[in-house]
């Protein structure tokens, strides 16, 4: 037996240690319990919010059905938007023969008469006539050569015929313009 053992003291120490463990476990349990309670309460709150949102969603959807149904407002509006998009695409997609024809007519002098036109987007064939040889010369030597600078799509310009009517002294030319296919 050890002489310095105080049996009463040891019991008090043992009691204190047990009390500490007990208090710690109770505190830990209390924290966990409170935390679990808070989470459950929060989950309940979130589910309630979700239910409210779903109700609101249904209400607004019903309002849209009602508002959109007046004179088919919704459908008409959607058609308007869809049509605008299609119209824009068509405007970009369609070819413009007229612009090319106008450019060709611009390079013809006033005393050069157009006899015939046959135009598609890829090819324009014109037949012109004039009594003025210098104008025809200017057309062939200057204006037609300058034309590709103005019209980037032009691929080829052909003079397919050149005739003179000996009785009327009228010169006739047939000119073919080939454009690049887009």
């Amino acid at each position, binding site marked *: 037996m050890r002489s310095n053992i105080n049996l009463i003291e040891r019991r008090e120490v043992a009691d204190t240690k047990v009390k500490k463990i007990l208090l710690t476990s109770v505190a830990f349990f209390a924290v966990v319990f409170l935390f679990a309670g808070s989470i459950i309460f929060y989950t309940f709150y979130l589910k309630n919010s*979700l239910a409210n949102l779903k109700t609101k969603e249904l209400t607004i959807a019903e309002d849209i059905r009602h508002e959109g149904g007046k004179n088919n407002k919704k459908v*008409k509006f959607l058609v*308007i938007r869809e049509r605008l998009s*299609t119209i824009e695409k*068509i405007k970009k997609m369609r070819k413009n023969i*007229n612009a090319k024809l106008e450019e060709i*007519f611009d390079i013809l002098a006033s005393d050069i008469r157009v006899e*015939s036109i046959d135009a598609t987007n890829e090819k324009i064939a014109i037949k012109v006539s004039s009594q003025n040889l210098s104008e025809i010369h200017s057309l062939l030597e200057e204006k037609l050569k300058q034309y590709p600078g103005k019209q980037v799509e032009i691929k080829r310009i052909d003079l397919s015929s050149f005739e003179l009517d000996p009785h009327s002294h009228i010169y006739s030319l047939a000119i073919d313009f080939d454009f690049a296919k887009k």
Partner: protein
Amino acid sequence: MEGLLRLYIRKYRSNFLPVSLFLLSLFIIYRIIFPQLTTISRVRQDISGAEARVNDLSTSLATLRSLTDADIEEKFKKVNSALPANKDIVTIFTTMTSVASDTDVEVESFTINVGDVYKKNKDQGEQVPAAVQTVAPALDIQLGVEASSYENVVQFSNKLQNSLPLSEVKSVSAVNNNGQYKISFFYKPYQVEDLEVQKVIQPLSATEQKQLEGL
């Protein structure tokens, strides 16, 4: 044996409550807290999705409420005059005669290729329309005019392509001031089921307003 058991119980009975509390805490953590955290994450995602849908629906409702009936009708008529829902031959003819009158040209002949020819799809045995444009189908017309000059022939073609309904002049030929045109007039049937799939109805943008005013 019984004495040993009593000894152990007496020795460790002070630890019984803390251990029980600890085990109960672990049980609460694994069976309540962790599952609830998963549920919270899921519900918050659902809330986020629902909020987005409510915002979209609110935008759609606000857009619809901002439009008056008169406004919608006017815009609807405008777009349909540019791109009709069907082959509106009367409107096409009216447009052509109006443009002819403006450009000092007389309409001599008018031929319409009205019907699309249906053909069987070789692979599937289904019937499909023969002429299908990628953007919008078109009604092809051949037109003969008499003009006072070639300038008027081109002017007519130009003005027609800039009129409504939308058209494209495919070819122009003229001899002795008599012009022949091949013109395609565009139309597009309504496809309401495809349109109604849209989730949000936004107001017309500035670009769209401008397009509408340009018609």
